[in-house]
């Protein structure tokens, strides 16, 4: 039934309107749509995990390729569910600690490299005018340097701000941060409006066929 695009779009449109009804006031239709969405997402994620990861692992990698060590991994993963049994809940710490430790170690290995490139790029030329793909010239590079140093000085909390250099640098940093956050907020407004535009395109186009 839900393969029919008309029925699927109508159901989607109805639930979209249920969610939008919250803008008028909180009501039961909004709560109904919210709870259905949360349950649907959870069920969808569980299904995706089964079909894309667990089922291929069991059917192919263990049963056919004879990678029996994966059974150990499954057992360790199942220990997470011991959290629901108070007497053996401590067993859940084993997979959690493996997961956290492996994840932190993995990320730490690969994290520094991207920042090194950005730090290297922050060394800009002042003495010669040159252009890049974004058309930077000497003035922009000087401003970039001042703003970068000022922003970093703003976060020097272990140095007393009792001299003009520290006060001046931190003040520049504060204003630069305000500019940056203002820009980020403007982008956020654009993003939120875009969400609504997408929903309008869905309601007016895919559902009511008033736009192409």
């Amino acid at each position, binding site marked *: 039934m839900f393969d029919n695009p008309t029925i699927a779009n109508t159901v989607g449109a109805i639930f979209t309107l249920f969610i939008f009804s919250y803008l008028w006031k909180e009501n039961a239709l909004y709560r109904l749509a919210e709870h259905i969405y949360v349950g649907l*997402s959870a069920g969808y994620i569980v299904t995706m995990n089964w079909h894309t990861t667990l089922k291929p692992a069991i059917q192919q990698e263990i049963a056919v390729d004879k990678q029996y060590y994966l059974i150990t991994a499954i057992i360790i993963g199942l220990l997470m569910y011991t959290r629901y049994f108070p007497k053996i809940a401590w067993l859940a710490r084993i997979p959690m600690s493996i997961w956290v430790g492996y994840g932190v170690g993995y990320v730490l290995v*690969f994290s520094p490299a991207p920042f090194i490139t950005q730090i290297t790029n922050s060394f800009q030329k002042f003495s010669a005018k040159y252009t890049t793909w974004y058309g930077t010239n000497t003035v922009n590079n000087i401003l970039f340097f001042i703003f970068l140093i000022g922003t970093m000085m703003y976060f020097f909390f272990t140095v007393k701000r009792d001299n003009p250099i520290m006060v001046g640098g931190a003040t520049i940093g504060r204003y630069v941060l305000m500019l940056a956050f203002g820009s980020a907020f403007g982008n956020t407004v*654009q993003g939120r*409006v875009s969400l609504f535009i*997408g929903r309008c395109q869905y309601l007016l*186009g895919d559902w009511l066929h008033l*736009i192409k």
Partner: protein
Amino acid sequence: MNIFDVLQSVDRRVIYVLLALVIAIPLLKPIPLPLSIAPETQQCYDFLNGLPDGGVLWIGGDYDSGSATELTPVGIAAAKLAFKKNMKIILYSMWNTGATQNHNWLKAVADEMGKQYGVDWVDIGWKAQAPYVLRGMTDDIITAAQGTDFEGNSLASLPLMQQVKKITPEYVDGILDLTTGSPGADTYLQYVIEPKGVPCTVAVTAVSSAQYMPRVRAGQYKGLTNGLSGAAEFEKLTGFPGKATAGIGAQAFSHALIILLIILGNIGYVVNRRG
């Protein structure tokens, strides 16, 4: 109660209705507006258009339906551009809630352009612990992806995957990552771009664009499209207008309304404070 008091006490539901009208009317009656191209979007297009004909484009679909308005148009236009250049496309989604929608739009584009699954394009889909799978795919795609694609077919049986063994410059000419957060472009930066040197460009939502600009400036990403406006610019450059172009008029008028309301509200605030 003067006019400024009224302006400061407008029911927010009135503003919602105004915003809805300002967005719906331009969608129903499109008003063509001039569209300038941002340097980052131009760089993104130049990068994708400069990839070799017949090469391999890796598309990262790292977003869900909440960001589809801003990112799917870029994916569609880029896929059409790639297929026009006879490139092959491999799609990998690191967000499980977006894997199906990504498959659907790429399939629609491939069908429209007469491209065959397994030969011209492959969807690896979503895999659990997706960032680590991505890292594994820089060594061996089929093993890291557990040997199956989005629909459960064997990856080893697909002609395209018999040619593309891993995510390295030897096999993949470029990456386009459609990203809204984590995992996303920064994951590619950590595990693919920096260690392996595969060039990458990104399409991001407006909310997160400020975060990625320093990386674009540092040359880590070869260009960036910023939200719905960036998507519309990209569609204009590729010559494949779509939903982003249709929505840009609505966005312009809605922003004008928001700016007007902010100005009026601040005038009222200043006047009342002085009074």
